Structure formats: C-alpha cells, structure tokens
C-alpha cells in the first residue's frame, strides 16, 4: 500500500470519530501492523492562511490523529511525511522520519507556494532523524522542535516555548502497559499451547500461564518498583517471587524426591523465562540505551540459558521417574 504525496492540500479537522477509534483499537491490539496509515501530504486544519503555522508529523494514523485532535479550533497546516505508517520516534530512529523525507515532503507538496513564512514545527522526538541545519540548507525552512507529546501542543503554541516537562519523555503506568496487548498477540500461539498444557497438567499449565501473563502485564506495571537496574534481573526477581506461592503449595502437600525435582525445575525454567521477557521489554521502554542492552544481553543470556536447560533436564528426569516409578 504505497501512496505518493498528495499534490493538493487535503482537508481535515480536529475530530476523531468512531471509525478512527476503531482503527486506534486495532492498532493497539496489534492487528494489521502496517495498515494504520494516512495519505502523506499537506493537510489544512480549520481555515489556514499564508501566515499559518506548519506542523509536521508521521503518517501513522495514531500520530496523525493525536496531532490534529489537539489542534481543534485552530488554523494550521499539517505536513504529513511518508514514514510508512510508523510513529515519529521509531521512524526517526530508522531515518524514515528524517532530513531527506522532510525535504521531499516540502518539495512534493509545494509548501513554499502555500505559506509565506519559512518555519516548520517538528515533534521533538523526530530529532534523532532530522538535522536542523540540513533542512534549512535544503529547502530554506527553519526547524523548530515542538513538545514531545502532542497533548502539550496547545500550551506550546500559546506560550511560544516548551517547558522542561514538555521536553522530557515519560514512562508512566499507561506508557508501560500500552504495548502489552501487542506482546500478548505476539505470544498468542505459545499461550494457546499453555492452555492445552493447563488442560493436560492443570497445576503446571496454570503456573506457566500465570507467570507468562505476569511477564507481559504485571512486569511492566511493577517495573519501577522491582529491584536492580537491569530489566533481566527485575524479570527474574518477579519470576522467583511468583513461582514461590505455587512451590509452597506443593511442598505443603507432598514432600518427596519428585516434589523437590519439580520445584527445582519450576524455578530453573520460569525464573529465566521471566528474565527473558524482562530483557525483551527493553525495546518497549523510553530509556534503554544500546550499550546498556548489549551489556545486559552478554551478562544474562548465558546464565538464563543454562538455568533453562538444566531446568528442562530436571523436568525430563522427574517425568521419566514419575512414569518409571523410580522414586
């Protein structure tokens, strides 16, 4: 679904209707990942004139709708770049929301003939991809970086400047949980297998299910309250914490070699599994650096793999022993 820049000025407004809301829900649930895009081009919000400001955004529908819904009752142009349906920050990191695309969009939409001024307001998080002086040299437009979040646009436009808070990315509870449904969808087949396992061996299946869902939902929610700097460690900590009640239940009922083997296998399998989910969460955070993640991978992957392998071995021995009547 490639769409070229519209040569005409397109119209839009600040309203987000039920059609858009359905699109947002689908995007949040991870359906049709590539399909949430709007046509790139120049959009008029309200009735902008030759002196009206030009805001720039990505052609991911969530980005586009977020910006325009904050511009209700104002007159402005919205220059939508072709970022292949990817949000501003990720697109900037990959260069699709970059200097070259800004120049291309300005050229393709004939922006110079639409407005008299030469200022573009870009989202702050596009800065990893956009070089201010190269945009100026390339098309004559001066780049101003607006706030991180579109919800701060009205305050920024009225006040003429960004506060420190508007320039800072957050990672609050909502931010931490917003990607959980997408992850849930990514692990859907594995979770179905666990459901099958829960039917065959209810105790173990249920435990694995509870731990996995906790890794996807509880871990992000509790992230700031878990100890240690490394996300892998925090995941393992949560894993150990959550396996323990199951283990206590087991130990309180039957105490034998088989139970002890099962307990060892549970810790050795599920603790690194949560550690791995924690490690994977780095990509969902707003703060993980490449150097930090690389160090975490080198520190944790091997120990976690060894734990999992020995846990699996113990589980196999335990199962064979159970059926073979060794213990």
């Amino acid at each position: 679904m490639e769409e070229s820049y519209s040569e005409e000025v397109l119209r839009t407004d600040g309203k987000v209707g039920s059609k858009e809301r359905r699109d947002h829900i689908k995007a949040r649930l991870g359906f049709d990942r590539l399909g949430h895009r709007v046509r790139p081009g120049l959009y008029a919000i309200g009735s902008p004139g030759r002196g009206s400001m030009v805001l720039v955004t990505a052609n991911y529908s969530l980005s586009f709708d977020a910006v325009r819904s904050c511009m209700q009752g104002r007159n402005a142009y919205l220059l939508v770049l072709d970022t292949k349906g990817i949000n501003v920050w990720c697109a900037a990191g990959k260069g699709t929301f970059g200097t070259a695309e800004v120049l291309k969009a300005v050229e393709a939409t004939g922006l110079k003939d639409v407005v008299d001024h030469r200022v573009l307001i870009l989202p702050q998080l596009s800065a990893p991809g956009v070089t201010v002086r190269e945009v100026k040299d390339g098309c004559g437009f001066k780049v101003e970086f607006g706030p991180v979040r579109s919800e701060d646009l009205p305050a920024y436009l009225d006040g003429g400047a960004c506060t420190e808070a508007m320039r800072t990315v957050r990672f609050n509870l909502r931010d931490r949980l917003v990607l959980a449904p997408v992850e849930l969808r990514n692990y859907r087949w594995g979770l179905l297998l666990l459901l099958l396992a829960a039917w065959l061996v209810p105790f173990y299946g249920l435990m694995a299910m509870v731990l996995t869902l906790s890794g996807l939902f509880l871990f992000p929610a509790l992230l700031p309250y878990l100890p240690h700097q490394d996300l892998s460690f925090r995941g393992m900590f949560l894993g150990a914490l959550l396996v323990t009640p199951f283990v206590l239940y087991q130990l309180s009922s039957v105490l034998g070699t088989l139970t002890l083997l099962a307990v060892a296998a549970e810790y050795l399998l599920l603790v690194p599994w949560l550690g791995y989910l924690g490690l994977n969460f780095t990509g969902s955070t707003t703060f993980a650096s490449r150097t930090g993640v690389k160090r975490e991978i080198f520190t944790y992957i091997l120990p976690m793999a060894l734990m999992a392998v020995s846990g699996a071995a113990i589980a196999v021995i335990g199962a064979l022993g159970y059926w073979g009547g060794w213990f």
Partner: protein
Amino acid sequence: MELTIGLEPPSAVKPINTLVFHPGKCVNCGLCLQVCPHRVFAPGERRVRLAKAESCMECGACQRNCASGAIEVESGVGCAAAMIMAALKGSDEVNCGEDCCR
C-alpha cells in the same frame, strides 16, 4: 579538557553509554537542550553542561544536531529483541521486525 563518560578506566566500571561531550567545542547554541528527551544536558553560562550523562539512551538526536561536533555518541536501538534477532541472522544491522515498532 575532555569528559568521557562510561568508557573511562578502570575497566571494572561497566560502560553505561557511549556519550562523549567535548566542552571545548561547544558554542552554546542550545540545540542539544531542546532535542534531548532525557534532559542529559543543562544550560550553562558559556557552554552547556553534561548534567545527567547516565540518563543518555543513545538516540543520537544531540550529536546529529550539534554543528560544532562537541557531542559524540554511537546511536542505536536499545532493543534486546532486535539485537538478538540481528545476532541470530548474523547481520550487523539491528532492525525492528514487522511486528514491532509502529
């Protein structure tokens, strides 16, 4: 004077990030203050200050926009899933899959 963060000896100190600030080259244009999403730099009298180096996530926005070359950072994606995938595929390019990063 050079301030190296993270890669300084002793080697026992684990690198936090690759951010390097050369205050001598800073012309105090203030662009890094604008673009940094973690407020790593703070305003100063004649040049900016490296205030929270440990918060740098290596997005590269400051380096890209520092015309005087006072900031160096090896920018990249801080995503374990993407890096593991790249390592498994044997490619140097760390990229997000189709199911990610939208």
